């Protein structure tokens, strides 16, 4: 199952590969693969312009905090082509929020971040819109603002309560620990940089209804926000999300207000309204990954075994709550990561600042807790003089040491196996020796490039930590030619959720995947859905689809059993409309049968099914046939499509709706105890980096990853999530730098200044592999979610950079390296050569 992408170690050549992603060649392609490569996939802004359609533009605050003294829209309305202007006064219900409804859709009076919208214009063309926006008169009075976690803490400017998860008496355990270390870790945010910026089109329909097409991860919330903003019932809004040009969490909550802006314009004018942000606007206005500042103290013994951890996590929530409290919760739930911490006090507080409201981003707080504990692992190792991998293995969850600080048992624990296997596979020990030797040699040569190596782990909890969100629903329609249309609440944003659900459904009916079409996500088919987030899109929606399939299969199976005993000329298709044959009754269990299960549990359940059903009628859906078998009877086979037609003519429903609610979840948010997660996706990664001593630039020489993704539905799609998540995380920990000016404006608001990884930044050697694990029987088909977990493994790049800096400076002292995330070239160079900066950092330079 290995993917090995070997790249030439040539100085400037990035990616490439000698061996291939061969395993994936057989995997079914993404359901949009062909329309993607031909450019025919339709995104929001690709929709044809309809007659009279308006473009929406935003008037927003240029200051972190300000009072809007005057807003005069009349000059804009005088521009030819500007058709309407919307302000807070026009919004029926002007508060929204993913958790707390604390954010105005359109602000009035005081504004709290750069980019906070105070007016929306609707205009006939982009040109008239630009002229209209330029003509708006707005006078602002700057107000005192908060632009750092430190300021917020000093002023006790907080969102939500202090959250605590604790086990034992951490402070006492720290006091009695033979050794302790303490530190402060600064982690900055990151932009999602989905390629399709926030976008929506709203079409007014008859009788006050609105049809919303939005690039949203959460169509239900978008429907609700639009309806409330417009003052109309939910039933008058349909929100459709066909596909997203990337989401990564950035469109979980924050897509909705933009749809509302277009809806307000559409409702006011009765004309279609389109809003498509430029990349610059999108980056300025929308929230990012929450910045964190973590103060920690860790107690351990001389072997490196952790005895206690006390951590205080502050996050920058920005101006409004958004999802920050839930993000903090997940950060606290991931402070242990792969390691058993007997005594822990983990506290978290979200700070309210004057930045854009920060929001979900792949990993959702998890990466922050994990960065802290992985950093502690490295530092313990340095303090006691052991290799960091040994310290990790010593502390890894294992038998008897397998309960998290919040009380969940770590079941199906693959972590020790993952560490052991990757250590061997990536030749960790020999490379560690080589790198030590290399770094020792170069101490005599100030021009050589220090190297670092680090292996980190991930144990990512799958489920929303808020229980009610762990539900999904699905509508499965079987058509009389034997093809299916499936609708769920899952939003396709590149991750391949459509293809996975199609595979699950196809497997249920024993059909080729091509027989299953996944329809655009729409609130008229699937209401009260959860966002496609928390890596759980397939788990929740795929499970719901399977439930719907099972219901349909029961009826089809019953019909098949009934048909078996009836001569073909009397089947419903032959008699329909003639009224000569009574309908076949399948309702009262006249034909006792068992439908054979599909998928993984074929093997697992075969014995059980066999013994229990020895004398029963068995019905199996396979190879586009339905097969009825019974001991001592000839097998009865009927073509799936024909059976569906018989069902239709027999007035038997071949459609159904499935609802799934994740079992076992018991987390008590107040006590900070219980089981928030159904299972954990796990993995390890070893990264090797080289630093440029002149510039601080980082080169990632090699990455080896090993993950437990359960039993993949589609190997290639999982591989895509793993490779992509890792590289996205690499950007967060290295080159992606959000720089704000003194007004609180993001100045790195486009790719010319905000640097996501390019092809040249990818690891020179990139080996990715999955272990076999069929044991995740709590989830559909024993799969495991793969969306977020691989991102957290990119932390190994950052710890490897710390390792390299520490090695390069180890002749100075055994100092610990205060390296923030992202480790920009400047930060790395400051880490390598702090003395060179000292003279220039002085306030006045001679």
């Amino acid at each position, binding site marked *: 199952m290995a993917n090995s992408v070997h790249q030439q170690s040539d100085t400037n*050549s*990035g990616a490439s590969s000698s061996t291939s992603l061969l395993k994936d060649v057989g995997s079914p392609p993404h359901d949009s693969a062909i329309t993607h490569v031909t*450019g025919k996939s339709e*995104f929001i802004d690709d929709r044809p312009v309809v007659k009279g359609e308006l473009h929406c533009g935003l008037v927003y605050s240029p200051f972190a905090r300000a009072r809007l003294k005057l807003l005069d829209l009349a000059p804009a309305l005088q521009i030819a082509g500007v058709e309407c202007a919307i302000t807070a006064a026009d919004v029926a219900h002007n508060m929204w929020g993913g958790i707390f409804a604390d954010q105005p859709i359109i602000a009035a009076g005081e504004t709290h971040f750069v980019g906070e919208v105070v007016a929306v214009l609707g205009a006939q063309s982009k040109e008239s819109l630009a002229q209209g926006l330029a003509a708006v008169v707005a006078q602002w009075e700057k107000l005192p603002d908060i632009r750092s976690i430190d300021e917020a803490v000093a002023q006790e400017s907080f969102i939500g309560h202090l959250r605590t998860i604790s086990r034992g008496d951490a402070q006492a355990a720290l006091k009695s620990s033979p050794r302790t270390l303490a530190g402060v870790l600064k982690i900055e945010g990151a932009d999602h940089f989905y390629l399709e910026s926030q976008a929506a089109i709203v079409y007014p329909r008859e009788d006050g209804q609105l049809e919303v097409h939005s690039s949203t991860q959460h169509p239900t919330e978008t429907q609700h926000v639009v309806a409330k903003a417009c003052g109309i019932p939910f039933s008058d809004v349909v929100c459709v999300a066909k596909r997203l040009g990337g989401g990564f969490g950035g469109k979980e909550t924050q897509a909705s207000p933009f749809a509302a802006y277009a809806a307000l314009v559409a409702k006011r004018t009765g004309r279609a309204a389109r809003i498509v942000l430029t990349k610059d606007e999108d980056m300025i206005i929308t929230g990012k990954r929450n910045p964190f500042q973590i103060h920690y103290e860790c107690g351990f013994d001389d072997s490196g075994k952790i005895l206690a951890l006390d951590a205080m996590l502050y996050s920058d929530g920005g101006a409004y709550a958004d999802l920050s409290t839930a993000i903090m919760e997940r950060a606290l739930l991931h402070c242990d990561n792969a390691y058993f911490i007997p005594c822990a006090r983990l506290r978290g507080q979200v700070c309210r600042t004057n930045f854009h409201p920060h929001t979900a981003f792949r990993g959702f707080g998890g990466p922050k807790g994990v960065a802290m504990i992985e950093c502690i692992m490295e530092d313990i190792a340095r303090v006691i003089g052991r290799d960091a991998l040994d310290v990790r293995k010593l502390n890894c969850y294992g038998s008897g040491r397998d309960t998290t600080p919040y009380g969940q048992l770590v079941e199906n624990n693959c972590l020790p196996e993952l560490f052991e296997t990757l250590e061997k596979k990536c030749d960790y020990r020999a490379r560690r020796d080589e790198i030590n030797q290399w770094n020792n040699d170069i101490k005599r040569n100030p021009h050589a490039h220090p190297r670092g190596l680090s292996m980190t782990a991930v144990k990512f909890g799958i489920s929303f930590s808020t229980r009610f969100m762990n539900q999904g629903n699905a509508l499965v329609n079987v058509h009389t030619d034997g093809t299916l249309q499936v609708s769920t609440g899952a939003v396709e944003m*590149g991750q391949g959720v459509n293809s996975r659900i199609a595979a699950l459904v196809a497997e249920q009916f024993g059909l080729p995947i091509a027989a299953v079409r996944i329809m655009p996500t729409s609130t008229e088919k699937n209401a009260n859905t959860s966002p496609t987030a928390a890596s759980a899109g397939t788990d929740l929606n795929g499970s719901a689809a399977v439930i719907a399939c099972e219901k349909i299969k029961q009826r089809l199976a019953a019909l098949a059993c009934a048909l078996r005993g009836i001569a073909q000329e009397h089947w419903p298709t032959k008699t329909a409309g003639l009224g000569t044959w009574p309908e076949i009754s399948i309702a009262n269990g006249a034909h006792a049968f068992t439908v054979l299960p599909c998928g993984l549990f074929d093997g697992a359940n075969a014995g059980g099914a066999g013994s229990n059903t020895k004398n029963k009628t068995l019905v199996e859906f396979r190879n586009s046939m339905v097969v009825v078998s019974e001991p001592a009877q000839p097998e009865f086979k009927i073509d799936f499509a024909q059976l569906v037609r018989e069902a239709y003519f027999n007035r038997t429903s071949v459609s159904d709706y499935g609802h799934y609610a994740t079992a076992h979840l018991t987390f008590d948010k107040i006590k900070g105890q219980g089981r928030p997660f159904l299972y954990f996706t796990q993995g390890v990664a070893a990264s090797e980096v080289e630093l440029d001593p002149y*510039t601080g630039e980082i080169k990632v020489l090699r990455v080896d990853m090993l993950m437990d993704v359960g039993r993949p539905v589609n190997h290639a799609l999982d591989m895509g999530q793993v490779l992509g998540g890792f590289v996205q995380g690499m950007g967060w920990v290295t080159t992606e730098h959000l720089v704000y000016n003194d007004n609180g404006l993001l100045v790195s608001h486009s790719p*010319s200044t905000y640097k*996501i990884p390019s092809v*040249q930044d990818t690891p020179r050697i990139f080996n990715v592999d999955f272990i076999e694990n069929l044991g995740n029987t709590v989830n559909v088909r024993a799969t495991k979610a793969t969306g977020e977990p691989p991102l957290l493994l990119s932390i190994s790049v950052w710890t490897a950079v710390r390792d390299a800096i520490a090695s390069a400076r180890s002749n100075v002292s055994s100092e610990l390296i205060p390296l923030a995330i992202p480790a920009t070239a400047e930060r790395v160079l400051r880490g390598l050569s702090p003395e060179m900066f000292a003279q220039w950092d002085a306030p006045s330079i001679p």
Partner: protein
Amino acid sequence: MRDFVLIYLNGVRREIRGREALMMLSDWLRKEAGLTGTKIVCAEGDCGSCTVLRAFPDLAAQPNFKGGANVGGHHATHIAPLEFEAMNSCIATVAQMDGSHIVTVEGMQCGDELSPAQVAMKNCHASQCGYCTPGFVMAISAMLEKHGGVVAAQHIDAKMAANYLTGNLCRCTGYAPIVQAALTVRATEKHSVAGRYSNTAAITDALNTAKKSLLIEHNGVKLFAPVSLREAVTFAAQNPGFQVLGAATDMGVQTNKGKPLPRVMLSLHLVNELYQAKQSRAGIVVGARVTLAQLRRLCETTAPELASFLNLFGSPQIKNVATLVGNIANASPIGDTLPFLLIAGAAVHVASRPGGKGPIHKRKIELTDLYVGYKKLALTPGEIITHVSFNATNSKELQRLYKVSQRKDMDISAISGAFSMTMAGRVKSSAVNATTHVGAHKTKSPLHVVSARIAFGGVAATPIRMPEIEAALVGDFTMEKAQTVAHMIARSITPLSDVRGSAAYRRVTAANLFMRYASEVLLA
């Protein structure tokens, strides 16, 4: 005089006038031509989602071009086939495409049959959300056009693939599957873009049309494309405040970000002589229309350090259209080629026709005299830059170009440096180690610097030479000397703090770039 822009779009002739001619190509493709496969993400030429293929019939290479209209029929064999290259459609106006053949992602399929790049991207699972995908398809197709032929792939190695994909960003895949697609793609003759779209009649039509000057006027904005230098300088004299359009890779960005188009634009794309480039042992002369990609191919032996610098940095989409003269005229303090040109004794050659009458005046301005302030050039009104010349690299000098940026590639530099020293003697490498190790004793004869040239970008309002430091370098060269000079460099500059790095970082890296150079010199 023409009032329409002529392009062939996916093989179909289009005449485009007025408002539409002044649109950005990507907007025009999406809104006017209804081809929404081309995506717009950054609108600044950084992400490659808007990549299309473009071929501009080589005016200079067409044997019949000067001779007149009689091309076609049995002369068809004399017409050079089109060479398609990738470019960003988001930062170029339609008018600049005049005479070009444009192929978008919609033009790649043969009927329902996917093109090789499309097949490879699909088979390698190289698209997830799909938004960057058409751009990558076009980038890989551009690689095939250059290196494909039918035998293709064995020549395409990882490094080449990555270089062709440098100008495209993807946020989903981590690139490995896309690189895999680029490595496994198999060209077919049937799908060759040049083969499919090198239609003799179309090329002839475009060439003939290109013999007529172009004037687009709309809403108070005027764009003129003359066919001769005389016409150009006459227009320049009669239209004060005109702006020359090169590739407009910067102007396109400014326009997309809200700055109106200049009211009077002069495009030199129909002026045959400005496509010329000459080189001799003494130096290189490059016309205003010569692209960075062409320059790189041209200067591989005469200025190898520049060639390898151009090879390593920048996206193909930009290098295929951006010109060296454009880089100079844009006068950015961080223009990538400027430190090199400063140490290579570059000069610009300008032309004007005062009053729009009489002969063409020409003069030469040393590059060191060209920049008089932030983005200010020492040109008089009505002057246009026609050529740039610079010295070939002397075999006795050791030249190095470096840039420091947050990301390795496709990033605007925080600082960049160009260094060159001519040495009197060389010491064998075994002796170098001895020299450096016991440098303090100076028992061995050290290297002797006869002359030195140093230039930096990103450390002041304009790219600068450092004459005092160059003077200080003359004499014996040791590691100690290098450290002293590095410190002088750090002290002599007055950089700013900005989004790309603090002032302190720029000072430290300016000194460090010199130290990198010094160590290469001493260890060479």
